[in-house]
């Protein structure tokens, strides 16, 4: 039965935004923890740690997010766990975000002049204190704009979770489209909703970036 694209369909699609947001939030928090570890490993003295972090980044930036999702999804069976789309999407997106945030934050950490770190060492601060009080606060300023920019990429990335059957915004659109056969309207609405989520973040990121550039050139 084909039915009209009605207001209840719009409500169903809008309601699915919460799953997009929940998934994005899980991936961002997980990715922030993982990314911090990757960034610290990448800038560590230990070459083995550096290599491992480098390989992690290369693998996750050099393969499609879709494949990462499928691998985790079907990998759950291999690991003897029940296949669950939300869990698979959360794990895959967390790993994905860890690699990208790790690389962004490595750049930010390395942008802090080495003299700062050396001065902290000369003051006999430990590694933890050096990072916590001297390097990371300065790196944070450099990292904020690209981190917000990556958040847009992450929200868009959650749309792929629909392919393994997780009902977020994109999947909700597909479900409504299958019932109403109004793809132009349905996918137009879904696109508009993603735009409403992502555009403000893009604007904030751009604003912060230009403010940073002015602060540096001054």
């Amino acid at each position, binding site marked *: 039965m084909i039915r009209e694209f009605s207001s209840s369909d719009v409500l169903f699609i809008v309601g699915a935004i919460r799953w997009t947001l929940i998934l994005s939030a899980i991936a961002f928090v997980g990715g922030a923890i993982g990314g911090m570890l990757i960034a610290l490993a990448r800038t560590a003295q230990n070459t083995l740690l550096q290599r491992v972090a480098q390989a992690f980044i290369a*693998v996750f930036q*050099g*393969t*499609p*997010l*879709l*494949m*990462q999702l*499928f*691998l985790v999804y*079907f*990998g759950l*069976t*291999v*690991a*003897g766990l029940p296949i669950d789309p939300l869990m698979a999407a959360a794990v895959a997106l967390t790993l994905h975000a860890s690699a990208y945030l790790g690389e962004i934050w490595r750049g930010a950490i390395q942008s802090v002049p080495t003299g700062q770190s050396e001065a902290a060492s000369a003051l006999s601060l430990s590694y933890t204190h050096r990072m916590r009080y001297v390097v990371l606060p300065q790196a944070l300023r450099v990292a904020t704009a690209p981190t917000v920019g990556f958040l*847009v990429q992450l929200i*868009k*990335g959650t*749309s*792929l979770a*629909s*392919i393994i059957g997780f009902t977020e915004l*994109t999947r909700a*659109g*597909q479900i409504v*489209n299958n019932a109403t056969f*109004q*793809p*132009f309207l*349905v*996918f*137009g609405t*879904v*696109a508009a909703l*993603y*735009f409403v989520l*992502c*555009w403000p973040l*893009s604007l904030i990121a751009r604003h912060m970036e230009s403010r940073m550039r002015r602060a540096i050139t001054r």
Partner: protein
Amino acid sequence: MYQFNFRPVFDNMDMLLQGAWLTVQLSLTAMVLGLIVSIVGAVAKTSRFVPLRWIVDVYVEVIRNTPFLIQIFFIFFGLPAIGFSMSPNTAALVALVINVGAYGTEIIRAGIESVPRGQIEAGRALALNPLQILRYVILKPALRNIYPSLTSQFIYLMLTSSVVSVISATDLAAAGADLSATTFASFEVYLVLTIMYFLLALAFSGLFGALRRVFFHYPASR
């Protein structure tokens, strides 16, 4: 305990290799056409005709702030509803070109802006003609500045192209989906597929690195 079974994957390797070849063709075509769209977009953004700049701005912002998956659904399922039908492979190509065109427009615009005005004035002072200024003073340094972001955007495009398998375009990911559905060795199939994409990305970045050394080799600035 899970029993790994790579047999069906290696028995059907020709099918995957064919898919990989289609992915390479699709990515390269999308890159070339996307570059043309990007150049047109970047030039249009410098236009004195304001509505044209707005159109390009809307295009860039909408594409960059919506998922590629939705773009491809819109083009493949949405456009036929208003009279534009196309085959899955054509829709895949169109979606990729539109997508990479938006990112490329921004990259190329930044490249044009990255050449300091003083350089152009210096070129004029050296009595270079406008064509020489364009070629040696503007284009070559501008291209060298944006080459890294442009090429990583292209590798990202190749990886993103895996998503076109959802509309049954015949790329590497679609070949994998077929194989996964017929053999049930899903994990093994996607593991091999992921490795193949990784190798493709390595090959592309090797190729781009070689091209960089050929075209942007300035002994003085190394």
